[in-house]
């Protein structure tokens, strides 16, 4: 139990340190949050704008809610992915990668700590975005099933974390290109996951990729919970694919990370300069 407690405490060290770093970079945090809020508002205004452009009435309120759920959930998922996928790049950028990797902790402890920070930080951001966006629109959230929505977010985060951990390993293999590849993965998830539209509108070959994106299922289930107030029991079928993705990507992510670390240790790629 003592070693486990020590690993949990070490995991918490990453959460605490990263939140302290966020506080120190507060100016940038405010700017990025402002950018996310403005982006969410811009997307949400497409709904009433659509009524004007199309010149015919449709349920703009439902479309606003559809888009708001999409933008806020994506803001959360994107932030989770970003924080996890760049955990190695961040350490390298700060120059701490060698001292962190030399610490007598399991690598999974580092991954767990970075992931816990990613979830907490991203959730806090998403709540702020939702609250601010809600001030601009008359959102009808009376039917929303918040317990279900929370459960979807919790389970959905795990699958995305698995992919994020795999992406985090890329900078261990490719010093600079690894981070570039991570951005490509992130952008691709945005395209295929149905953030601003149902995935059915995508061409068939592109729609196929939505099947393997956990974000697709999170968004579907979240809309069912928030827009239609679907009960927790009725949400269960949505959890199946998310759990399957988690079961595959989480161990795969940890394994890939370990393999990439061994590669980096063998080829002197831990540190950027060599």
């Amino acid at each position: 139990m003592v070693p486990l407690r020590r690993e949990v405490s070490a995991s918490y060290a990453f959460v605490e340190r990263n939140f302290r770093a966020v506080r120190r970079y507060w100016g940038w945090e405010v700017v990025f949050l402002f950018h996310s809020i403005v982006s969410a508002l811009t997307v949400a205004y497409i709904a009433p704008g659509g009524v004007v452009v199309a010149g015919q009435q449709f349920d703009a309120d439902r479309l606003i809610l559809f888009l708001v759920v999409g933008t806020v959930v994506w803001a959360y998922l994107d932030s989770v992915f970003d924080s996890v996928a760049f955990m190695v790049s961040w350490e390298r950028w700060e120059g701490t990668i060698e001292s962190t990797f030399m610490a007598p902790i399991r690598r999974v402890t580092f991954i767990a700590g970075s992931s816990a920070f990613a979830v907490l930080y991203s959730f806090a951001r998403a709540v702020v975005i939702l609250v601010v966006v809600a001030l601009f629109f008359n959102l009808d959230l009376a039917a929303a099933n918040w317990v279900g929505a929370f459960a979807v977010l919790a389970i959905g985060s795990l699958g995305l974390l698995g992919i994020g951990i795999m992406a985090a390993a890329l900078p261990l293999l490719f010093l600079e290109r690894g981070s570039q590849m991570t951005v490509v993965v992130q952008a691709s998830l945005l395209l295929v996951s149905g953030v601003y539209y149902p995935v059915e509108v995508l061409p068939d070959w592109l729609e196929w990729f939505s099947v393997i994106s956990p974000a697709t299922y999170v968004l579907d289930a979240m809309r069912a919970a928030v827009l239609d107030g679907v009960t927790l029991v009725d949400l269960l079928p949505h959890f199946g694919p998310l759990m399957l993705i988690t079961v595959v990507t989480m161990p795969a992510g940890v394994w890939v990370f370990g393999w990439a670390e061994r590669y980096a240790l063998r080829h002197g790629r831990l540190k950027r300069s060599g």
Partner: protein
Amino acid sequence: MQPAVSIDHLVKHFDPAGVGGAWRRALGRPLKDPIVALDAINLHVQRGEVYGIVGSNGSGKSTLARVIATLLLPDSGSVQVFGHDVQREARTVRRFMNRVSVEASFFKKLSPLENLTFTARIYGLPHGEAHQQIFEILKRLDIEAKAIRRPMDQMSRGQQQKVAVARALLTSPVLLILDEPTTGLDPRSKREVQDFVREVRDTHDATVILMTHDMDEAEQLCDRLAVIEKGRILIEDQPSALRREGETLEDAFIRLTGHAVEVDEPDAAADGGGG
């Protein structure tokens, strides 16, 4: 008595092609020759010893430091720290070892207190005890009280390096690897860091391995010295025994290697930039 560090026939090459090498090989394209960073190194450091490794940039010092510090896997040979293999028992080795490198590697926007609290947590030190220890060590290193809570990017490089030494000491290592700890520091900061190394040597039951290209520093601090050149140990002895009559240690280095110590070599990058 079991040595603190035993290195036998240690070999390390770097493939300049990196990940692309596999593609080049598959496509039948010519590959660059691997860089020999460490070439059959044999070295034994006794407990409580301050052991210096001197060499030019690119000679293999930092590569050797990284292998001992479990940050680089050797191609062949064996490296043991207090009887534990650095490859197979990396986590055990990490528990009683720490390293101070040429760059003070911290989250620079965080304060010394925040950075050291992080270290204390990942090394499993009790929070209250660690907090007290952090203040004591930083005070001993003459870090001003008000600087302890300020971002580290507001400190001089010398001060940052002292915090790096403090971080290493906080974990009570029985093996301390100092990889060019005073390079680039102003004379005063350099002297302060060197004084602290002496203090560690005199008051802690620690073994110190010092990688440096500063011959005065090596002579002042080390019980024994090894001269490393192109990944090979040329000679190993007490500093006084390396010098001939009338020679400085730098003269001895030039005699042994054929060049002055400040030489920059092209493989420095592959070596981790430090040498």
